[in-house]
C-alpha cells in the first residue's frame, strides 16, 4: 500500500481498470438477470404447443425449425470445413499463393456482417434459383457464414497433432488418405467438435441472415423448401409486433439458456483438449 501513497496516480489508474472490468461483468449479469426475472414467469406450457396462432404465439414450431436448420447447416458446412482444413494442413505448401487466397477469403467471410449474407442469400437462392423463402436457402446462407469458424478450429486441431503420428503411420506403410482418417483426425476430434458447437451457437442466434432467406412463417415446414422461422427470428417478430412483450421475454429466456449451454459445452471440450 505504501507505494500508492507515493504514486497516487497509479492508484487512480488501478481503480479505473477495476471499474471497467466490473462494468463489463455487471452489464452481462444485469442483462441475464433482467431477462430471466421477467421471462421465466411467462414460460407457460401453452408456449410449447405444437401449433402457432395469434392467440397463442407458441415457440415450438420455431424450436423445431431451429433444430432442422442446425442439422441442415452442419450437413453442408462440416464436410466442406473439415476437408478444406485437411487440404490446408496436410497437402498445401505453407507459402503457396493459392493458400494465401484461401486465407484472405476466409478472413473476408469472417468480417462480412450477417445482413449482407442475408441479402446475398435472398438474391442467389430465392431469386436466381427461384426457391423463394425456404429452409434450405437459409441453411446454405448460414453454411457459408459458419464455414470459416469450422475451418479455423479444424486447422488448429490438425496442426496440434504431432508430426510423429503421421511419420509413424507412413512408416507402417499406410497411404496418405488412410493416415489422415485413421491417425490424424481421431486425436483432432475434440478440437473440431468445439468448433462445430461454436457454429451451432451462431446458427441459433442468427436473425439478419434468415429473415429474407428462410423467411418468417411460424409453422412447421412441410419440406426443406418451405419457409420457416427459427427461434431467434421468432423472437425478433414477437418484439417487433409489440403485442407479445411477455412472450418475447419467455423466448429470450430459452434463447439465453441455449446459448449458455452451448458455450459451456464448447468450453468443457476445449478444456479437455488442453490436458
Amino acid at each position: 500500500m505504501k507505494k500508492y501513497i507515493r504514486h497516487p496516480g497509479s492508484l487512480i489508474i488501478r481503480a479505473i481498470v477495476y471499474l471497467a472490468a466490473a462494468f463489463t461483468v455487471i452489464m452481462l449479469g444485469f442483462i441475464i438477470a433482467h431477462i430471466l426475472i421477467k421471462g421465466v414467469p411467462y414460460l407457460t406450457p401453452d408456449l410449447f404447443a405444437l401449433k402457432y396462432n395469434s392467440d397463442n404465439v407458441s415457440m415450438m414450431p420455431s424450436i423445431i425449425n431451429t433444430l432442422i436448420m442446425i442439422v441442415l447447416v452442419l450437413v453442408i458446412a462440416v464436410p466442406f470445413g473439415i476437408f478444406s482444413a485437411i487440404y490446408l494442413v496436410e497437402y498445401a505448401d505453407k507459402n503457396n499463393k493459392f493458400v494465401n487466397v484461401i486465407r484472405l477469403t476466409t478472413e473476408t467471410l469472417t468480417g462480412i456482417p450477417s445482413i449482407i449474407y442475408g441479402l446475398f442469400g435472398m438474391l442467389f437462392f430465392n431469386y436466381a434459383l427461384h426457391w423463394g423463402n425456404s429452409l434450405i436457402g437459409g441453411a446454405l446462407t448460414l453454411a457459408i457464414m459458419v464455414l470459416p469458424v469450422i475451418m479455423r478450429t479444424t486447422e488448429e486441431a490438425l496442426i496440434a497433432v504431432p508430426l510423429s503420428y503421421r511419420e509413424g503411420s507412413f512408416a507402417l506403410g499406410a497411404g496418405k488418405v488412410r493416415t489422415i482418417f485413421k491417425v490424424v483426425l481421431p486425436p483432432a476430434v475434440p478440437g473440431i467438435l468445439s468448433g462445430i458447437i461454436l457454429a451451432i451457437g451462431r446458427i441459433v442466434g442468427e436473425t439478419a441472415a434468415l429473415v429474407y432467406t428462410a423467411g418468417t412463417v411460424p409453422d412447421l415446414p412441410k419440406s426443406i423448401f418451405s419457409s420457416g422461422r427459427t427461434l431467434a427470428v421468432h423472437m425478433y417478430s414477437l418484439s417487433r409486433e409489440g403485442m407479445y412483450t411477455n412472450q418475447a421475454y419467455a423466448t429470450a429466456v430459452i434463447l439465453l439458456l441455449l446459448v449458455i449451454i452451448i458455450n459451456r459445452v464448447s468450453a468443457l471440450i476445449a478444456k479437455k483438449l488442453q490436458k
Partner: protein
Amino acid sequence: MNKIIDKLMKVVFFIAACASIVAVALICGFMFANGVPAIGKIGFVKFIFGKVWKPGSELFGIFPMIVGSLYVTAGAIIIGVPIGILTAIFMSKFCPKGLYKFLKPVIDLLAGIPSVVYGFFGLVVIVPFVRENIGGKGYSILSASVLLGIMILPTVIGVCESAINAVPESYYEGALALGATHERSVFKAVVPAAKSGIFAGVVLGIGRAIGEAMAVIMVCGNQARMPKGLLKGVRTLTTNIVMDMGYAADLHREALIATGVVLFVFILLINIAFSVLKSKEAK
C-alpha cells in the same frame, strides 16, 4: 487401388478448399451485379449524397443512413472502446488467476448472446431509461450507441487481450526494474508496445458496430431523415435494408441492394485496415 483413392481424395480436399473462394466470389458478384446498376439508374451522386429517401416518389438518397451509421458507430466506439481496452488490460495484467477463470467465460458469453436478445434488452431497458431520464422518445442515436457499445465489448476485449499478452514479459520487467509501479509499467511500457494489435481490435469493433442490424433496428427509431441530435431517431444502412426489404419492389428493391453494396464496401475497407494492422503486429 490405394493410389487411386489417394489421388481422388486429394482432388476432393482441393475442391472443398475452393469453397470459401467460390463463396466470396459469388457474394461479391451477386451484390455488385445487382446493386451497381441501381446506383447507375439513380445516379451515383444522387444516391450517395441525396438527403431524401422517399421510395414513393422515386427519391433514393442514402446520405442520411450513411451519416446515421457513422454516428451510431462513433457512439459505440466512444462507449465500448475505453471500457473494452481497460477490461482487456485488467484481464491480462491485473486479474488474479481464480477470477480469470470466472471472467473469461463471462466475456465469451457476452459474445455469444444473440443480437436479437441484445436488441430486445435495448428495447425494454435502454429505450425507456433514456426516455424517462434524459429526454426525447428514447429511440435515438444515444440508445443505439449504448447498446452497440456493449455489444462490441467482447470483440474489443478479445483482440486487445491477445495483443497485450503477445508483448514480451521483458518489457514489463524492465519497467519494473527501473522503479516504475505495476500500473505505470503496464500503461507506459506494455500497452504502447501492443498499440497496433489494440488498433486492430478497435477496427474490428467498428466493423461489428457498422454491420449490426437486428439490435439497432429495435432501438434507433428508423426515421429516414438526416439525424438531428443525440436524442433523435436515426436510420442506419443496415436497418434501411431490413425495414424496407419486406415490401420493396422494382427500383426500390434495387436501391436497397445498392445500400447493401455501400455497406459491403465499408466492410471491405475495414477488413483491409484490420489485416494491415494485424500484419504490422506480427512484425
